[in-house]
């Protein structure tokens, strides 16, 4: 009984949160609703007995959405509503509906044909994190390593992009030096660097 109550509660909460994320025009509402939606999803993992995945869901998505907040802070005034520029709402609508129908079809078809079964069911003797480790390093080693390599590529690319002027610290420089640096660089790139 408790499981059913918890399931419907968290299902309603998750759907509600993601509806807000999509519908609102306020950046802060959208981000907060998305963060809470992601955290509410972890409840389903806990109910299914996958404690490790549930906790990982919380850890990964709090951090990931936090990075989105940082972007939100950089690009918008988050206390104002955002007016989106939409040239052709019809295309957005058609594409959105098509994508949503497709996803529902993909997810529901194995359930309807009752092909859905746990190929690596939870064993009581093996702990949760051990079970995941076993499956990851035996059955799914190639995708796991590929994901690791892709993340490494992204990380190195990020460092290369961001690390151009890492040897200079604006905090430790005198005001004249900063002025000189921004004066020499102003024609080259129009970024607002060193502008106080």
């Amino acid at each position, binding site marked *: 009984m408790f499981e059913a109550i918890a399931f419907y509660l968290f299902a309603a909460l998750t759907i509600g949160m993601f509806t807000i994320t999509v519908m609102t025009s306020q950046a802060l509402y959208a981000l907060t609703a998305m*963060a809470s939606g992601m955290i509410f999803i972890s409840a389903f993992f806990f109910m299914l007995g996958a404690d490790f995945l549930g906790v990982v869901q919380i*850890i990964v998505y709090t*951090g990931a959405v*936090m990075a989105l907040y*940082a972007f939100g*802070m950089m690009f918008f005034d*988050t206390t104002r509503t955002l007016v989106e520029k939409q040239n052709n709402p019809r295309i957005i609508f058609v594409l959105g509906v098509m994508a949503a129908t497709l996803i529902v079809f993909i997810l529901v078809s194995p359930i309807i044909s009752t092909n859905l079964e746990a190929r690596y069911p939870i064993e009581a003797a093996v702990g949760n994190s051990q079970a995941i480790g076993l499956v990851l390093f035996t059955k799914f080693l190639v995708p796991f390593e590929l994901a690791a390599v892709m993340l490494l590529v992204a990380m190195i690319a990020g460092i290369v992009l961001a690390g151009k002027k890492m040897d200079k610290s604006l905090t430790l420089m005198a005001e004249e030096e900063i002025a000189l640096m921004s004066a020499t660089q102003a024609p080259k790139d129009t970024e607002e660097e060193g502008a106080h």
Partner: protein
Amino acid sequence: MDVAFIIETIVKIVVILSVFSALAGFGTYFERKVLAFMQRRLGPTHVGPYGLLQVAADGIKLITKEDIIPQNVVKPIFKIAPVITASTAFMAAAAIPFWPEFTVFGYTVHPIVADVNVGILYVLAVMAIGLYGPLLGGMASANKWSLLSAARGAAVFISYEVITGLSLLAPLMMVGSLSLIDINNYQKGGFFDWLAWSQPVAFILFWIAAFAETGRTPFHLVANDHEIVDGFGTEYSGMRWGLFFIGEYANMFFISFVMAIIFLGGYGDGSIAGAFQLLMKVAFFFFFFLWTRAAWPDVRPDQLMWLCWKVLMPIAILNVIVTGVVILIKTQGGM
């Protein structure tokens, strides 16, 4: 799921909630007294014996103060931010064993609300959500200083989460379990079995990261004191501001419990002496938070990031690699 279990769980939750909300209140009293002692002042003396009732006076003040919601703030987010900090701090406590199990009238009590087998991960994950409070509060406040403080909060969060995770990895590799009870039982042998001796680097790193996680003084950038504003709390008043405070102090207590259990042997073999030792260890860690506040100035934001990414993270990764190699050699040698 029988009725006894439900009642037991509810009782545990109520006990933990009430004890630690009260302790959070007294935490402020301890902090003022310790700081006063170190700065050769007296601290609170007037209300009650030794100023003990100052806590009650503060509480009454906070609760009865007008709850001001400034004009340009994003109202729902502004209102919910302090609740996030306070509630996640207590939610994290669900997987912490506060005391060894004991028997009362033939009924064995496990003083842990939910013994999930990924306990330590759960505690850290939920504590991490608590940092959304300052972030949201700062961003919703429509105040430049609050926004600055929120930005710093996000930076500290994203950076020091890495240190916490990496520094914990090495001791967890030795124990081979994520449950705090298993970690405690691994160090059952007493003083010389403590993980602090076999993993001193991880201990120090985790301790440093704990200051960042709770936003205590050397890393108190989330509330930028040096700008003479209270950072994310600038626009808050009354009990909403008080909730931030309760969350911060409860977090300090819970992270002290976590450190004592992982690195300093926890409650040991589960005897009464061991249980009191755990409380002494927690008290020491809590005192250390206050001691550091009296002794150290805040570091600059860029120094904080430098410390995190250029010093602590390489050390943490090296520690993990060395631990892994040593464990491999040991198990291979044993075969």
